[in-house]
């Protein structure tokens, strides 16, 4: 189509006439505006003025989506290319039009597909997150259940640790009621206080251990303090006269965790080691910083772990012990807790005998303090 500088159609081909449902005669000499929807006219006029001032070629596909209107009033999307030309009688514009109805429809379908795809991805992501959350909830319950089983055995052991100081309190209080010397009364009073505090400490230790971890947020945990707590608990509760527990710690940066879960990890490994030592033995615990990690090594002088079991010790319900000694969840829980804090755990039989567990936790820094929330 060729349009003159007054906006009149000077030349038109059959294809374009068919596109708009006119005959050639109906179009020739008519203003080009009859091909435009009414609400586009004002904008079109502005464009024509601008174009007349600075005529330059506009390639197909450049610029906005445009619409044409056919003789019977149907509107359809068109792509327009413009090519200005100077003739002896003035400016003309050669306009090339393509009906892009089909292309638009395809584009629209593509867009809808994309939208649906995004919805699907969002749905699936949500489902996966839910599944992950559910897994977390189940693990949380399992950790607590395993802990309570351990608490069962702890309580009978702790009884001893409470009854001893309680006995001292009783005997001293008996002596106090008969005593007339004030200085001695004071000394008895101090003794009772000391023993009472000792009992309180034991109870606190046990109840801290028994607490459900779900109630706490992650916090910075001093691994050496956690180990000391676990060792204290193990010494008191699993008090086994045959076994010595030796701890050599070096100062280590904090890790990000729930403190009672770290205690549970260490306690379970100690308990496991005690069960592995047939007669007298030694459990050595060692901490060190290794780059961005805090490493904890727990080594015992027990029988070691048969090579064919090394890969299975962290499996749930894997146990070589009798029914009275646990249900095979202790080390599984250890593994679950360590990996949820993005740590690693390995077990090996060192050359000197026994078994050695090596646990590594990533050091807490400001960044993962905000981001990492298992």
């Amino acid at each position: 189509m060729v349009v003159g500088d007054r906006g009149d159609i000077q030349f038109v081909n059959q294809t374009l006439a068919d596109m708009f449902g006119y005959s050639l005669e109906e179009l020739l000499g008519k203003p080009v505006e009859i091909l435009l929807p009414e609400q586009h006219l004002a904008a079109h006029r502005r464009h024509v003025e601008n174009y007349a001032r600075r005529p330059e070629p506009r390639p197909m596909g450049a610029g906005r989506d445009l619409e044409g209107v056919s003789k019977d009033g149907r509107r359809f999307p068109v792509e327009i290319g413009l090519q200005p030309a100077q003739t002896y009688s003035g400016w003309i514009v050669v306009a090339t039009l393509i009906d892009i109805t089909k292309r638009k429809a395809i584009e629209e379908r593509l867009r809808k597909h994309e939208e649906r795809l995004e919805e699907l991805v969002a749905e699936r992501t949500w489902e996966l997150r839910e599944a992950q959350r559910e897994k977390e909830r189940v693990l949380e319950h399992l950790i607590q259940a395993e802990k309570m089983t351990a608490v069962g055995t702890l309580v009978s052991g702790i009884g001893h640790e409470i009854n001893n100081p309680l006995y001292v309190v009783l005997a001293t209080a008996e002596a106090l009621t008969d005593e007339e010397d004030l200085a001695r009364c004071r000394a008895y009073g101090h003794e009772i206080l000391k023993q009472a505090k000792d009992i309180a400490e034991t109870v606190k230790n046990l109840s801290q251990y028994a607490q459900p971890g779900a109630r706490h947020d992650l916090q910075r945990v001093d691994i050496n303090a956690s180990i000391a707590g676990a060792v204290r608990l193990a010494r008191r509760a699993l008090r086994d006269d045959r076994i010595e527990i030796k701890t050599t710690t070096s100062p280590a940066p904090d890790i990000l965790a729930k403190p009672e879960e770290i205690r549970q990890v260490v306690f379970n490994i100690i308990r496991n080691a005690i069960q592995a030592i047939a007669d007298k033995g030694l459990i050595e615990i060692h901490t060190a910083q290794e780059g961005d990690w805090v490493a904890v090594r727990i080594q015992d002088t027990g029988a070691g772990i048969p090579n064919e079991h090394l890969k299975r010790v962290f499996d749930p319900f894997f146990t070589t012990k009798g029914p009275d000694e646990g249900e095979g969840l202790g080390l599984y829980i250890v593994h679950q807790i360590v990996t949820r804090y993005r740590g690693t755990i390995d077990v090996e039989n060192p050359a000197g005998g026994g078994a050695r567990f090596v646990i590594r936790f990533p050091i807490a820094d400001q960044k993962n303090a905000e981001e990492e929330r298992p």
Partner: protein
Amino acid sequence: MKHHVLILDDEADVRTAIRLQLKDTRFEILEAENVQQAIGLLGDNAISIDVIICDVRMPGISGVEAVTTFQREYPTTPVIILTGFPDVALAVDFMKKNDVVDYLTKPVEKDKLIAAVEQAAQGRKLFG
């Protein structure tokens, strides 16, 4: 001759508590924190030990082993078990295997401990 009670317990506070409860009795108190010390005192001919009060759980050696040793070496000296473990099965086991005269659990009241010690000491007189 002076009467003696030998206390075998690894915890000094507990030994002191027993001493306090027995302070107004006719007995002199001897303390041992391990079996070797106890054997040493029992073997001393200059002192006569009427009753042994023995803990069950101690580092190095169990109360069961300790009692077995006492019974073998000094069969006429009565043993009272005083333990923080209120474990019935263990108590029965003790009574069966050993000739312990009493099995008390901590915390025990003064009157009860004194009565047990007196009874044990008199029993010794009868059989010893």
